[in-house]
C-alpha cells in the first residue's frame, strides 16, 4: 500500500502540470466556460425587477452545468488517463517499473481530477455570482436559500470527481473509453437518470440531485415534476453512495488495469 501511494504521488506530480498543455484541457476549459458564457448573456440581456427567478439558476446550474457539462468535462479529461499512455505507447515505461500497476491509474486520475474540480467549481461559482448580480440590487442577498450556494459548489465538485473516476476506469476497461463515456453520459445517465422509477438510483445524477435538492425542494419550481419523479435520499446518504461509486469505479478499473495486457503498435 505504501508503494502504491508513493508511486501514485510521483505520477500525480509528474502529470499534473502536463495536463494543462494538452488539447483535452483546452476543450474541457471551453466546455466549463459555456455555462459562464450563458450566465454572462443572461446578465447583460435580461432585465429583472429584483433578483432573477430561481428557475433560471436551476436551469443553468442543474440542467446545463451538472447534468451536461460536469460529465462532459470529466469525460474529455479522464477518459485519457490510461488511453493517452496507450495511444502514445509510453505505457511500456511505466509497466516495466517496480510499481503496483494500479498506482498508474490512481496517480494519473488524481492529476486530472484536480484540474476538473478546479474548472467546474470555478464555472459554478462564476455562474452563481453572475446571476446573483443580475437585476436590481434589491433582494439579491435573499436570492438563494441559506447554504444553497455551498451545496451547488459541492455538487459540482462531487460530480466532477465521481464522473472522472468512472471515465478513468472506463479507460482501463474498454478500448474506446470516449465512445463508451459518451454513451454512458447521454444514454445511461441522461435517459435512465431522468426516467421515472427506481432505476434512477443506479445513476450518479440521482445522488447529485438528492444532495442538491433534498433540502431545497422549493428551488425546482415548475421543474419539480421532472426533478423529483422519485423520492430523493438524504444528503448524507447521497454522499455515501457517491463515495461508494467512486471507490468502486477506481477499484474495478485498477483491478482490470493490473491484469489486462496492452498490445502496443511497434
Amino acid at each position: 500500500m505504501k508503494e502504491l501511494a508513493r508511486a501514485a504521488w510521483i505520477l500525480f506530480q509528474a502529470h499534473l502540470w502536463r495536463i494543462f498543455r494538452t488539447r483535452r484541457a483546452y476543450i474541457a476549459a471551453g466546455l466549463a466556460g459555456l455555462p459562464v458564457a450563458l450566465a454572462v448573456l443572461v446578465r447583460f440581456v435580461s432585465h429583472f425587477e429584483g433578483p432573477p427567478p430561481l428557475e433560471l439558476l436551476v436551469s443553468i446550474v442543474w440542467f446545463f452545468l451538472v447534468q451536461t457539462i460536469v460529465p462532459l468535462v470529466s469525460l474529455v479529461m479522464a477518459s485519457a488517463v490510461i488511453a493517452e499512455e496507450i495511444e502514445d505507447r509510453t505505457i511500456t515505461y511505466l509497466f516495466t517499473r517496480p510499481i503496483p500497476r494500479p498506482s498508474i491509474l490512481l496517480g494519473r486520475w488524481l492529476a486530472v481530477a484536480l484540474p476538473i474540480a478546479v474548472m467546474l467549481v470555478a464555472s459554478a461559482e462564476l455562474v452563481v455570482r453572475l446571476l446573483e448580480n443580475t437585476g436590481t440590487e434589491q433582494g439579491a442577498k435573499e436570492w438563494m436559500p441559506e447554504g444553497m450556494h455551498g451545496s451547488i459548489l459541492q455538487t459540482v465538485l462531487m460530480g466532477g470527481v465521481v464522473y472522472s473516476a468512472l471515465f478513468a476506469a472506463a479507460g482501463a476497461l474498454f478500448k474506446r473509453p470516449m465512445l463508451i463515456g459518451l454513451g454512458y453520459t447521454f444514454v445511461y445517465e441522461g435517459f435512465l437518470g431522468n426516467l421515472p422509477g427506481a432505476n434512477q438510483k443506479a445513476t450518479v445524477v440521482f445522488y447529485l440531485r438528492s444532495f442538491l435538492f433534498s433540502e431545497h425542494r422549493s428551488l425546482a419550481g415548475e421543474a419539480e415534476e421532472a426533478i423529483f419523479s422519485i423520492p430523493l435520499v438524504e444528503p448524507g446518504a447521497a454522499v455515501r453512495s457517491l463515495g461508494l461509486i467512486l471507490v468502486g469505479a477506481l477499484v474495478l478499473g485498477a483491478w482490470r488495469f493490473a491484469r489486462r495486457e496492452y498490445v502496443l503498435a511497434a
Partner: protein
Amino acid sequence: MTTVLQCHELGRYYGQVVGLNELTTELGSGIIGLVGPNGAGKSTLLRLIVGEIRPSRGWLKVLGEVPFGNRELYRRLGFCPQQDALYEDMTGYDVVRLLLRLGGYSPRESKERAERALERLSLTGRMHSRVSTYSKGMRQRVRIAQAIAHDPQFLVLDEPMTGLDPLGRREVLELLRALGASGTHVLFSSHILYEVEHLTAEIVLIHRGRLLAKGALPEVRALLSKHPRRVELGARRARDLARALIGCEEVVSVRVSSTIESEDRLSIETRAVGPFFQRLNAIAAAERFGISAVRSADASLEAVFDYLIA
C-alpha cells in the same frame, strides 16, 4: 554460466496471427543478439521477456521469475522499447529522472543517476531540452538512457541502433560492449546483422515466430554443413579459371560476373571448403589466372541468416 532466460514451448498469438511459436530455449549470460527479419517475432519475444504481454501458451522465466507484472524482476531489468515513444513535453532529463523515481530512488539519487546515464549517451548538453525538439537519434539515446540508468542486471533492447547516426551507433555499440564486460546480461534485437556481428558472436535466430538457430556464430555456421558454401574470387582470367574449376568434384557451381575493372569476379559454391582450397592452390600454381582476391562470402552473419531462412 547463469541462465538468464528459460522458455518452454512459448507461444504468443495475436488472434489468428502467430507472433511466436513453440519456442523452447535457454539463454545464458553475456551479450546475445536476437536476429530475424521484420515480423520474425523478435519484438514479441522481447515484450514477453519484459512482461508487457503474457504468453498464449508455454512458459517463460527471466532471471528465474515469471515476468508479467513482476515488480521484483523489474528492479533488475532494463528495457529499451522499439517504438519511438516518449513524453514529448518533458525534457530528456525529466523522463529519465521520473522513471528512476518510480524505480524507488530518492530525488537526489535519481538526479545523479539520470545525469550519469545521459552523459554516457552523450546527451548532457541537450538533456534539459524538451523531447519534442530532439532528433531521432537523441530520442533513441534517451530511451537507452532510461533503460541503463538503474544499472540493471539484465538489459533488453529492441532495435537499439534505430535512428542513430554512424557515430551514435559506434558509441552505443561501445556502451553495450562495456556493459557486457561489466557483467550486465544484454539481449538486443536487430535486423542489421553487421551490428550484431560486431558486438557479439552469440546469436539467436528466429523467423516466422520459430527458433531457427542459437549459439556462437561458428556453431550456427556448422549447422550449415549441408548447405553449399560460397567463395568469391577476383581474377583477370576469370573465365579460364571457371573452366578449370567446373570439372572439380568439390565444386557445385561457378558463376562469372563482370566488373568495370580489368578483372572479373567468380562466385563458386562448394560442399567441401578445405579440399576446394587445396584444389584451387594446385590450379593456381599450375597456371597463372591472375587471382587477386579470395573471400569466403558467407562467413558473415548475413549469409548464415540467408541460408537459414531460405
